[in-house]
């Protein structure tokens, strides 16, 4: 009984820790992105709120919370209110299955550093990432604005194009790790990360998660130059904030996924596993930001072409080759 | 019908057309100064040079003078003519000052346009510029002679076209000067037209001085409301103030010019005392509440006292739509059909014009082309000023003008005047005199005769006689047309909406019967606009409710128990029918509201934000009536319904403001009309009330810009009559009429028919209104007080 209570307590502690870390990471990612982008453009970036602009996320939060919460007259009110929550929630839920460290020994118990080690964790991730797009699609639809709708439609078609390649690119990982459980996958990479074993799958997955996170060069659902703000054109205040936070949480989650699937998760020399994990995730986040600073937005037809005619065949081919190689090795 | 080629485009024009007109037909604008559509060509400015490649005269030619020949080939943009025009522009700019920023013409200046079009951009001439001293030309026209380019347009307009005599050209060689011999106000009643024709800023509108630039003005095609002619105008307003009126162009009516009354008499719109808020028993209310109050009370009165209890009164100042909707409202309320004019004799005369004369109405264009014009009891300068200009054009084209009028008529052209009393004119028309036979002979010999009758002095009976005369003088070869002069801008329209009914009684009889409890006056003030104002004033005390819709600060609007502000003609779209049955639309120029000049008190506008424009309560009367009727139709839908209800208005809904308009008249068989002329009491004089040239119609009376031209009150007698009564000119005398007695200074004029006494209805003497029944009066010396 007490064991179960302690387990429950530990799970709660893990939940709160993860929740807090992820949210504050998302918040400071915003700041980091603004600062890094600014430096890439020979600017300083936000440096007024707090020392070196460190309080900027708080200032943003206060600003977003105090702004008018506006619902357009012709909008579908309930869907409109629901959509931002959906977007942030699905992003947060994904983290449940991500192992962020080696199992810990506390009070004589082995605590796995994952909230819930599902044996089909990978499928859970794929499922939730497909659900995440609903937040955007419903938000765009419910706003009853042409820009929002166009953004939502773009988001949906982009999702179909890239989910497929993404799904196919993790098939070799599953084949190599012989498990759907993410912990198993990490353990399978103790020696060599899959990124080195199977670079094509890594690259396809990397491109796909950039598309998945709707960031430059695949930020067509937003594309503020043509669609004002895309699916969140009509949103203001904290509802816009939820979309915004959702995007950065997504960045962390997808970074974690990449770490888990291809970069060997927490494994690494000298440092504790959790630190390695965070370092890898942050490096990927920096890469995301770097991409944003360096690349232009793709044109819509280029994006579709690339997804269907390049990534998908490549991913399929990769599955076949990996399968063949695995068979050959035995 | 020769065909020629201009700039590689072929065009066929009528015989005798010039190259300039042919180019205009193609939409090619040839730069020009001295040519003006109404004035014709003189070939003085040399600006319209074009190159003729095939034709009798080859080479550089003046397009305005060159008659079109078959097969001619002309270019307007070849280097030769372009270079020539550039040099002409440069040469015209030699003495022109560089003061465009402080010149009112800037922005609508033909010289600016032509200098740019001519390609002249840099001054090369280093000599001294010629300067002039300016003249003061009165309250309307400002002169700045330094800007003059000697195109002669002003003189051609003022003297040749409009017949003015006190403005001309002086000096020689490089000193040619346009002005009066001595400084002083311009005497012509058409002086404002020189502002329109001046291609640069020499002659500008003094009342509009420095007020706005052309590009800032809100303008819309409109119709002048000052008399029954309905001349086309282009009023311009800015900052909610009507700032000026320009002449519009309607070839069928005024041509290119208007009179000073129409041009400078528009400031009634911004009259400082104009009531802009609805009032119920001296307390301000909202328009919505006022309308509710009105509708409720009217219904209640009709229920308790019967259909006679509410009397609706339309007006010849109100638009056609307004009057028609007033009839609809009366039908809906269940009261008697509204009277559409307070002035019954004028209304009856207008009915004769609208119904009996419908098939032989002459437009002003036809007047200009007539070869014999006979005026019966019309003083054009007082009653319909632009008719005088039209008469002048007829005379310039070789026509002959005969005037039968008791008044000392002045016209800007040669004419033969017979001073006959009104009764004598009636006899003449009834063909009872020797003169009638002579007149018939003259009319029979004329190729394009037009009879012009003044509705005010002739009345309905006289106009009917005129119609008979015209019928007799018509032949199978050519009709004899009639041009009636009526009272208000929409007299014809009001008459057309109210066909004659037997046994109809007029406003005063109805009011004096005592059965009327509520009187609704729609944009009319019978105190000032109808005869027997005293009798009308007496009946007001018997009313329970006096409701007034108006946009002028009339005395009646002060008396009203319920006052509802309506918009002036320039503040809303609408339509008038002019004296010859021409239905013309006018557009909205400005929105109603207190001008910024008023709200800011001359300084900058107040630094406060309002959600509503101050003083913007007035609404178009038709809209107010629509609200009373509970309808939501827009003006276009109202017009659609009107043209279905009244076949004579066919095409109304398709009509646009500007353009020639539409003839709307309902020809019916002449009705029987009995009239007994009153006997002249022994020793009495026929009382003639004539409108003053300025300040008789309510629009010009409330136009402060016209105040310098208002005349003083006075009475005019023939010297013979004065001598018989022992009266001397300059004395104050007593005029005894049925309406009351007045003390007025006496003037003697031999041009006045003997046996008549003439008084002018004006701002100074509003008591007697022109156009009443034929009346008689006594004039006697003032009794000296011991």
């Amino acid at each position, binding site marked *: 009984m007490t064991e179960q209570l302690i387990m429950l307590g530990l799970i709660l502690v893990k939940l709160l820790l993860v929740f807090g870390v992820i949210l504050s990471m998302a918040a400071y990612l915003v700041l980091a992105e603004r600062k890094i982008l600014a*430096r890439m453009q020979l600017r300083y970036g936000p440096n007024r709120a707090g020392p070196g602009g460190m309080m900027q996320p708080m200032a943003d939060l206060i600003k977003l919370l105090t702004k008018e919460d506006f619902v357009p007259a012709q909008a579908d009110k309930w869907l409109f209110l629901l959509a931002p929550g959906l977007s942030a929630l699905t992003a947060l839920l994904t983290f449940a299955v991500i192992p962020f460290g080696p199992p810990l020994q506390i009070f004589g118990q082995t605590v796995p550093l994952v909230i819930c080690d599902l044996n089909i964790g990978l499928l859970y991730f794929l499922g939730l990432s497909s659900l995440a797009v609903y937040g955007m699609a419903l938000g765009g639809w419910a706003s009853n604005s042409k820009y929002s709708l166009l953004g939502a439609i773009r988001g949906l078609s982009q999702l179909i194009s890239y989910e497929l390649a993404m799904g196919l690119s993790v098939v070799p990982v599953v084949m190599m790790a012989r498990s759907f459980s993410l912990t198993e996958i990490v353990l399978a990479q103790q020696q060599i990360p899959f990124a080195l074993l199977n670079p094509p799958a890594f690259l396809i997955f990397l491109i796909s998660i950039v598309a998945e996170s709707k960031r430059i060069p695949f930020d067509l659902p937003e594309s503020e130059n043509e669609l004002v703000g895309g699916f969140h054109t009509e949103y203001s205040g904290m509802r816009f904030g939820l979309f915004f936070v959702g995007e950065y949480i997504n960045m962390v989650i997808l970074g974690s996924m990449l770490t888990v699937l291809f970069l060997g998760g927490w494994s690494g020399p000298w440092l504790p596993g959790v630190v390695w994990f965070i370092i890898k995730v942050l490096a990927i986040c920096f890469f995301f930001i770097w*991409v944003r600073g360096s690349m232009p937005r793709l044109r819509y037809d280029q994006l579709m072409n690339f997804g269907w005619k390049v990534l998908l065949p490549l991913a399929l081919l990769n599955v076949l080759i990996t399968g063949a190689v695995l068979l050959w090795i035995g | 019908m020769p065909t020629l080629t201009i700039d590689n485009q072929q065009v066929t024009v009528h015989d005798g057309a010039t190259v300039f007109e042919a180019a205009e037909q193609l939409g090619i604008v040839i730069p020009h100064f001295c040519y003006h559509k109404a004035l014709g060509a003189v070939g003085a400015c040399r600006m319209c040079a074009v190159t003729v490649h095939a034709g009798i005269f080859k080479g550089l030619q003046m397009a305005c003078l060159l008659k079109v020949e078959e097969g001619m080939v002309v270019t307007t943009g070849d280097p030769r003519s372009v270079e020539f025009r550039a040099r002409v522009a440069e040469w015209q700019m030699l003495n022109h000052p*560089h*003061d*465009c*920023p402080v010149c009112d013409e800037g922005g609508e200046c033909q010289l600016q346009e032509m200098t740019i079009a001519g390609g002249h951009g840099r001054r090369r001439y280093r000599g001294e*510029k010629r300067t002039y001293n300016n003249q003061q030309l009165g309250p309307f026209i400002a002169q700045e002679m330094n800007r003059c380019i000697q195109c002669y347009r002003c003189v051609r307009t003022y003297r040749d076209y409009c017949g003015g005599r006190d403005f001309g050209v002086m000096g020689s060689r490089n000193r040619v000067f346009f002005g009066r011999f001595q400084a002083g106000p311009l005497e012509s009643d058409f002086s404002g037209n020189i502002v329109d024709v001046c291609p640069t800023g020499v002659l500008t509108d003094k009342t509009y001085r420095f007020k706005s*630039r052309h*590009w*800032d003005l809100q303008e819309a095609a409109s119709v002048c409301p000052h008399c029954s002619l309905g001349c086309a105008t282009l009023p311009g307003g800015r900052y909610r103030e009507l700032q000026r009126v320009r002449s519009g162009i309607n070839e069928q009516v005024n041509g290119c010019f208007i009179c000073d009354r129409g041009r400078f008499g528009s400031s009634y719109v911004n009259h400082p005392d104009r009531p802009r808020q609805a009032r119920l028993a001296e307390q301000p209310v909202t328009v919505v509440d006022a309308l509710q109050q009105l509708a409720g009370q009217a219904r209640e009165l009709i229920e308790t006292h019967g259909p006679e209890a509410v009397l609706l009164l339309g007006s010849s100042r109100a638009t056609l739509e307004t009057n028609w909707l007033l009839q609809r409202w009366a039908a809906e309320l269940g009261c008697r059909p509204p009277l559409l004019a307070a002035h019954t004799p004028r209304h009856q005369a207008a009915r004769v014009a609208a119904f009996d004369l419908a098939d032989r109405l002459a437009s002003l264009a036809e007047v200009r082309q007539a070869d014999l014009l006979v005026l019966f009891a019309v003083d054009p300068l007082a009653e319909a000023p632009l008719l005088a200009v039209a008469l002048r054009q007829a005379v310039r084209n070789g026509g002959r003008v005969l005037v039968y009028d008791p008044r000392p008529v002045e016209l800007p052209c040669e004419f033969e005047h017979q001073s006959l009393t009104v009764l004598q004119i009636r006899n003449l028309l009834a063909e009872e005199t020797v003169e009638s036979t002579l007149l018939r002979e003259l009319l029979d010999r004329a190729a394009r005769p037009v009879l012009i009758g003044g509705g005010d002095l002739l009345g309905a009976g006289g106009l009917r006689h005129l119609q008979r005369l015209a019928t007799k003088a018509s032949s199978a070869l050519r009709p004899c047309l009639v041009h009636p002069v009526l009272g208000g801008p929409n007299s014809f329209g009001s008459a057309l909406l109210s066909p004659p009914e037997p046994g109809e009684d007029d406003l005063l009889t109805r009011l004096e019967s005592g059965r009327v409890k509520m009187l609704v006056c729609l944009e009319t003030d019978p105190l000032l606009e109808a005869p027997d104002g005293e009798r009308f004033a007496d009946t007001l005390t018997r009313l329970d409710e006096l409701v007034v819709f108006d946009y002028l600060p009339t005395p009646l609007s002060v008396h009203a128990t319920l006052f509802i502000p309506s918009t002036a003609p320039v503040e809303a779209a609408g339509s008038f029918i002019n004296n010859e049955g021409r239905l013309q639309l006018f557009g909205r120029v400005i929105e109603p509201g207190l001008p910024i000049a008023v709200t800011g008190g001359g300084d900058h506008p107040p630094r406060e934000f309002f959600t509503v424009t101050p003083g913007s309560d007035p609404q178009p009367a038709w809209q107010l009536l629509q609200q009373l009727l509970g309808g939501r139709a827009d003006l276009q839908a109202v017009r659609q319904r009107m043209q279905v209800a009244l076949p004579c208005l066919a095409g109304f809904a398709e009509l646009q403001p500007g353009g020639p308009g539409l003839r709307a008249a309902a020809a019916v068989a002449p009705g029987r009309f009995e009239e007994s002329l009153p006997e002249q009491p022994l020793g009495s004089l026929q009382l003639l009330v004539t409108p003053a040239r300025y300040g008789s119609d309510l629009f010009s009376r409330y136009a402060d810009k016209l105040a310098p031209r208002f005349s003083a009150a006075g009475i005019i007698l023939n010297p013979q009559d004065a001598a018989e009564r022992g009266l001397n000119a300059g004395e104050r005398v007593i005029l005894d009429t049925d309406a009351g007695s007045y003390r007025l200074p006496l003037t003697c004029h031999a041009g006045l028919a003997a046996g008549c006494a003439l008084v002018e209805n004006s701002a100074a003497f509003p008591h007697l209104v022109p156009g009443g029944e034929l009346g008689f009066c006594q004039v006697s010396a003032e009794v000296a007080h011991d």
Partner: protein
Amino acid sequence: MPLLRDIKGSFQPFWVTLRNMFRKPVTVQYPEQRPELPERYRARLILTRDPDGAERCVACYLCSAACPVDCISLQAAEAEDGRRYAAWFRLNFARCIFCGLCTEACPTLAIQVTADFELAGRDPLKLVYEKEDLLVDHCGRQPDYNFYRQTGIGVTAPRGGNPGESPPVDVKDLLP
């Protein structure tokens, strides 16, 4: 080799951005650090006076016509001596985009730009400048120009008394 070029083109920007990250930013830290403005900087507008000290503005409405955002409104009036001036002149800096077209349109060099760009405020009405706020006591950038001495109509000098003009002609003179 377009493919090679494309691949190269995809990696080059990453190098450029990375390199720039380690350079010194060019941003001017405004309130602490004052910007060095060019001489012809376009900011707050003023109404200047002519060398005689009279208002240069003749209220010709050209600035308000040239203004692409309609932030200038004014009313002309006539002074006793025939001088045309602005009875009121209102410039809404909340709307102004500092394009300077008004100064280019101004025929009398009255409206001019200054380098004073610190106009921000919390009350939009305080950004609405009236004539008395705009009018300055100097000639601005062109100290010599006096419109009324060039125009050819007598306001400052008697008629025909400006440079390049002959005295008024006697119109009743018939001599050749």
